[in-house]
């Protein structure tokens, strides 16, 4: 097909005179100690964490504000607050805020979910003070101007419409409802109607009541002197005060194992399988063993489930399992997207692999491979300012410091194959799961129902 006169056959290409060669051994990896994190709690209650990582002349900023709310309008109001936080203060307008950030190579972004509001960004380290000045201004004096709220409300409605046309959003919403009922943790995306009803007054009231320093954590990592960075924060964010504390999300109800719910998405050419079971948090004695059991099941490419349904059967492009932390606990997620005509077959193989993990537990070789991957990929993920900043921020929200991370490779090393087998039995037993199957029920319904354990249309 390439037009060349002649070429070797596939068989000739795959063979050399010398024959197969042995895999070289591993060498050594140098130790790069994690930096010390300096910590200070401001009089306003804000916890500030700062660490020096001078690999590039940048600084990363993460502000995490617990942002839960019970009111049915909370999700819509907080989404709009997040969209208009950077659109104006008493002294800066939307353009002015962006110009000031851009002048020091900085970007700030705001996101919100049922658990927390995050302001994340980065900029040249030399401009950290300017970035914090803008941050301090929007935290204390964001005006959420009527015109900006009106325009962002329209855009938010349009974006939500687009997001809900994505199969992954449909599947995520169905899964959240299935496992957590109507707990506020399920309100990840408001409806268009809820957003359309939000007023600028509601947004401003929520900022005053909920965007508060006590209980919040600001993390800064980069080419900075930690003490100096903390001094900048003290100066720029001292005026951010409130009598109340940031609101933590309550624990969702425990997952109740049960049938998978079939959710109809007309016209789908693929189906989303989303299974879920209870898991444990980082501080649980089982955590390292669970992490390794998960890797063996579906937590990385070289897992049983991926090798089965992708590399053997060709049912999917990707299959992934992993632990997701929720307030007060954790859940296991088992996710894949497969063609409609193999949905039942993929579900069968998924249940088979869950059962197999408990009945034919991970071997020593499987555990060793997962262990090496867990330790190595942790090292790689921490090898950048951004990765380190996000990790410090997430651990701090969980009440943990970098010492937990420093000790984690040793914990992974000490887990035995038997402990991984025990974790597999405890957390991957097929009867522990619930979940959803999203797809065109007219095409996949009969096949998946025949397997049993399915409810819905």
């Amino acid at each position, binding site marked *: 097909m390439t037009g060349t006169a002649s070429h070797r056959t*596939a068989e000739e290409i795959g063979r050399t005179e010398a024959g197969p060669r042995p895999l070289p051994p591993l060498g050594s990896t140098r130790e790069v100690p994690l930096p010390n994190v300096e910590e200070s709690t401001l009089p306003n209650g804000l916890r500030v964490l700062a660490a020096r990582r001078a690999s590039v002349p940048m600084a990363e900023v993460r502000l995490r504000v617990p942002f839960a709310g019970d009111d049915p309008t909370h999700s819509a109001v907080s989404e709009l607050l997040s969209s208009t936080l950077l659109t104006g203060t008493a002294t800066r307008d939307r353009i002015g805020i962006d110009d000031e950030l851009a002048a020091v190579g900085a970007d700030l972004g705001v996101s919100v979910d049922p658990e927390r509001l995050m302001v994340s960004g980065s900029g040249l380290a030399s401009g950290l003070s300017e970035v914090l000045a803008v941050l301090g201004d929007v935290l204390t004096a964001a005006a959420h101007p009527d015109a900006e709220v009106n325009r962002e409300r329209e855009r938010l409605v349009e974006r939500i419409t687009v997001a809900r046309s994505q199969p992954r959003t449909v599947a995520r919403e169905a899964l959240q409802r299935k496992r957590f009922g109507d707990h506020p943790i399920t309100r990840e995306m408001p409806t268009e109607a809820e957003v359309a009803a939000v007023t600028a007054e509601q947004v401003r009231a929520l900022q005053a009541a909920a965007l508060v320093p006590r209980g919040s954590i600001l993390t800064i990592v980069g080419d900075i002197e930690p003490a100096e960075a903390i001094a900048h924060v003290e100066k720029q964010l001292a005026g951010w005060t409130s009598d109340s504390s940031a609101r933590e999300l309550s624990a969702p109800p425990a997952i109740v194992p049960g049938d998978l719910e079939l959710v109809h998405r007309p016209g789908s050419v693929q189906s989303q399988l989303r299974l879920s079971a209870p898991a444990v948090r980082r501080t649980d004695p089982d955590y390292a063993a669970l992490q390794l059991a998960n890797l063996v099941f579906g937590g*990385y*490419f070289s897992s049983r489930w991926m090798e089965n349904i992708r590399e053997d059967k060709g049912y999917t492009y990707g299959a992934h399992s992993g632990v997701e932390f929720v307030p007060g606990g954790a859940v296991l997620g088992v996710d894949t997207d497969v063609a409609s005509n193999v949905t039942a077959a993929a579900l069968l193989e998924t249940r088979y692999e869950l059962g197999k993990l408990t009945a034919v537990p991970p071997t020593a070789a499987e555990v060793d491979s997962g262990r090496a991957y867990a330790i190595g990929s942790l090292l790689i993920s921490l090898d950048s300012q951004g990765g380190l900043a996000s990790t410090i921020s997430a651990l701090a929200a969980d009440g943990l410091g970098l010492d937990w991370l420093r000790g984690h490779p040793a914990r992974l090393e000490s887990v035995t194959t038997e402990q991984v087998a025990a974790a597999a039995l405890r957390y991957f037993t097929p009867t522990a799961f619930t979940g959803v199957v999203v797809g065109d029920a007219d095409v996949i319904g009969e096949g998946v129902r025949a397997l049993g354990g399915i409810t819905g249309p």
Partner: protein
Amino acid sequence: MPAELPSPELHRATLSNGLRVLIVPDPDTPVVGVAVHVDVGFRSEPEGRTGFAHLFEHLMFQGSESLEKLAHFRHVQGSGGVFNGSTHQDYTDYFQVLPAAGLERALFLEADRLRAPKLTIENLRNQVDVVKEEIRLNVLNRPYGGFPWILLPPVLYDTFPNAHNGYGDFSELEQASLDDAAAFFDTYYAPGNAQVTVAGYLDVEETLRLVEKHFGDIPARPTPHRPSFFEPIPGAERRQAVPDAHAPLPALALGYRLPDPAADLDGYLGHMLLASVLSDGEAARLQRRLVHADGLVTDISASAGLMGQLDARDPDTFTITAVHPGSVDPDRVVAAVDEELDKLAAEGPSTDELSRQVARWSAGLHQENDRVMYRMLGLGARELLYGRAEIADELPGRLAAVTPDQVRSAAAALRSAGRGVLLVEPAADQGENE
């Protein structure tokens, strides 16, 4: 204000079989990366075999003389590393990032498949299925699938290499044969048509020795002739509408031709900064006008390069994409974009406006530099495409030197040439077509 990135230490060599080697030490990291860039992308795949370059990329993970199926993944991950590969217009890359202890193992794994991949009919059939799932996931089962990278080129370009779908048609993927794979490998995966980049914690001499040890005995083969993919810039606007069964809102893409970065790098950089002045940040021209002042679009974005900046040889595409409410006529969106381009073509951006965008670029390049994977891939791709990895490190300085008048010229160039206009129209009742 942006400083040059720290002067990089780039070490080059060429093995006797023609394989090019780029070694980039970084004493501050505990990780190392190995990338193989092969000088063939989806523009080189033949008619009747759309998607073959990408399918072949998948096959290269399926085993080689010393490695059974699945062994490549297991050895990389079992050494604590991560891997991937990707197919672009003009090149295909394969890469791994691992704790530094895995350096020789990574070189071995890459060399084994560049020397003797195990191409079997079972693996071919299996990966055709996997690629079809990838296309269902990223194109067929979601809104705006393939927008704009698959949908825009056929509007702007006339020739098969530039216009066709690089993911491929299902029927053509299904027709791919083992002999096609053998011919593709023998032709394009010759060592003289490839380059190895090693970056991260390493000793230069030792790394060069290991590269020679593992890649050195791959026999030389003729290096394929690399055709020009040039075609004339269209003189007028071409317009095409496509239905999207999943999209709730219309979208549009404008495609223009970019200057050839090999011949006119500064002209290309002027277009890169034009894209930023148009759409990066709340203060950018199209954000202010179309998103906020006129309320015409939900989101709008401009960028140089169909698959990224400085990621292809000539010809490549400057794109402006927008999602807009159904109540807004797309012609109003296009007219407002044209007015903003006209303003820039007449007066250019202000000095401050431009220097703010340069500062953001500079910061973004620092961030990219902070990850061994991105740094390695950026250096490797520029070395392969333009013969100058240095471009990656010179970018902050060269962008800082771009004048408002160069950005003005870029805007004028867009306004004076033909373009492709792609309209994506929601069509909820349309049947799925695969």
